[in-house]
């Protein structure tokens, strides 16, 4: 149903996401989508690979679909413009108050950085969207300062609060829905991350730059 061309060895070697690769995958996804191949339903740029989802019963689906996909990827890779990001910077107001930052103390203990400094580092570094997935609009945001890196929690929460801003390894996530999640919560945004009635429905798209802006609980309530 789909063919994937990842770069698992490179990933394993670097222990994380190769940012150059991630950016070129996003350019590649745009180039493939422009082709509008009738049997390709979805082009999903991921952290270190790209997924082409096709209609398995489409009348025009070629017999040697893997070969055709490889050729398509090669051609598009050549034609893909050198990555230029979406030009968008998404400003995300985050309340880092202990009321919302349920795991801040644990992160502070693990990283030996005070809650106040965690907030300072998180809001002053440049972040960008590596991938959107898991649930509608949920961004995997790269650029987390290595000083703040913590592993996923041993026991995931069964319900993350809507709007939870959470970190794990080298990334930040913002939870659009109350879904299970194993990342450490350091704050919460009042913004609606995904709204199918809004245009565009998703606050984040792959390639967006992200800036986190600290807000108070009062400001959080007002923006809600």
């Amino acid at each position, binding site marked *: 149903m789909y063919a994937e061309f990842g770069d698992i060895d490179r990933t394993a070697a670097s222990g994380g996401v190769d940012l150059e690769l991630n950016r070129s995958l996003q350019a590649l996804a745009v180039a493939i989508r422009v082709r509008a191949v009738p049997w390709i339903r979805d082009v999903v740029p991921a952290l270190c690979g790209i997924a082409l989802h096709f209609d398995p019963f489409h009348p025009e689906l070629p017999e040697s679909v893997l070969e055709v996909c490889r050729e398509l990827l090669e051609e598009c890779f050549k034609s893909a413009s050198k990555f230029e990001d979406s030009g968008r910077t998404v400003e995300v107001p985050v309340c880092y108050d202990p009321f919302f930052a349920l795991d801040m103390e644990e992160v502070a203990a693990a990283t030996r950085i005070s809650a106040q400094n965690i907030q300072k580092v998180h809001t002053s570094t440049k972040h960008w969207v590596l991938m959107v997935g*898991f649930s509608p609009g949920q961004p995997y945001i790269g650029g987390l300062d290595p000083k703040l890196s913590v592993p996923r929690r041993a026991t995931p929460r069964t319900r993350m609060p809507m709007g939870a801003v959470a970190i794990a390894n080298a990334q930040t996530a913002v939870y659009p829905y109350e879904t299970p999640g194993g990342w450490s919560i350091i704050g919460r945004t009042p913004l609606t991350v995904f709204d*199918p009635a809004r245009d565009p429905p998703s606050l984040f798209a792959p390639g967006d730059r992200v800036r986190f802006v600290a807000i108070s609980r009062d400001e959080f309530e007002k923006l809600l």
Partner: protein
Amino acid sequence: MSLRIIRPGLLTTVQDRGRHGLQHLGVVPCGPMDPVALELANALVGNRDGEAAIEFTVLGPEIAFEADALISLCGALFEANVGGVPVPANRPVFLPKNSVLRTGRALLGSRGYLAVAGGIATEPVLGSRSTYLPAKFGGLEGRLLRAGDALPLSEGISSLSLKRYGNLENRKVMAGLRTVGWSAPALTLPEREPITIHAMEGRHHAHFDAASQRAFFEATWKVSPDSNRMGFRLVGPVLARAEAFEILSEPACFGTVQVPANGLPIALMADHQTTGGYPKIAEIAAADVPRLAQLAPGGSVQFARCTLEQAGELRRALRQRVDSALRSLAWDYQA
């Protein structure tokens, strides 16, 4: 014109062909668990392919029709009657207004589809009427149908539907129902259990220990009652990785078999997450996904190893069977 749900049955939702093209924003297509059955159901009433219909699971709904309607029941074989007269599956059936269609338990298979000429006309969300239960949008308010719901029907019935509809309306009543003497073949019903489902080795298959690599293709797996439209949890031997390592989240699809930390595989179904961080032991051949979807909780399945080329052959063979079934429907309702 609308349908009224008197009794909803189980896991009853509105589904059309699905919400494709948005997976890069984390939006999964949803759509029918058994797309072949939906395609046949729509064709029988003259709808365009992919029109919205009602999907139900194991226990069917009871539905009142406020106006004359041309319907078809496809997919799993359900007990079904109108005023005590059995309603045959896989045929176009004319129901006069104020009919009440009562469906009961699934006798074979688990997912039933009720298509109505014109299609269900709930408001499309992001280009589709499919119900997205985890994100609560699409279909009717993004939720399961319940008693008292009114589902709007499209006023724009296709010319093909009108032709067939008129033909049946004037037909003699046969055994209390206006229908035809032939039926479309059911192409996705499960054969004797354990059913055999073809699967390719997944991207992380080699990372499992040797016993687990074998066990996946040798064991008989049971579908856990804990299964839903997001995934089928499979109960069998616990699968272990040769060594623990963390996998970066990556795209998954309808038919991916992933293995979470507890070692019991999950076959991802129509409402799966777009990306996941669990290792993938297998990818189910697209042609066999609808038959797996028809397996009820408690049902058993064995996985037969196949190559990408074999999966392609299975896919083309199924397409041919669907096409020949559709061609046989292109006749007028004379037979």
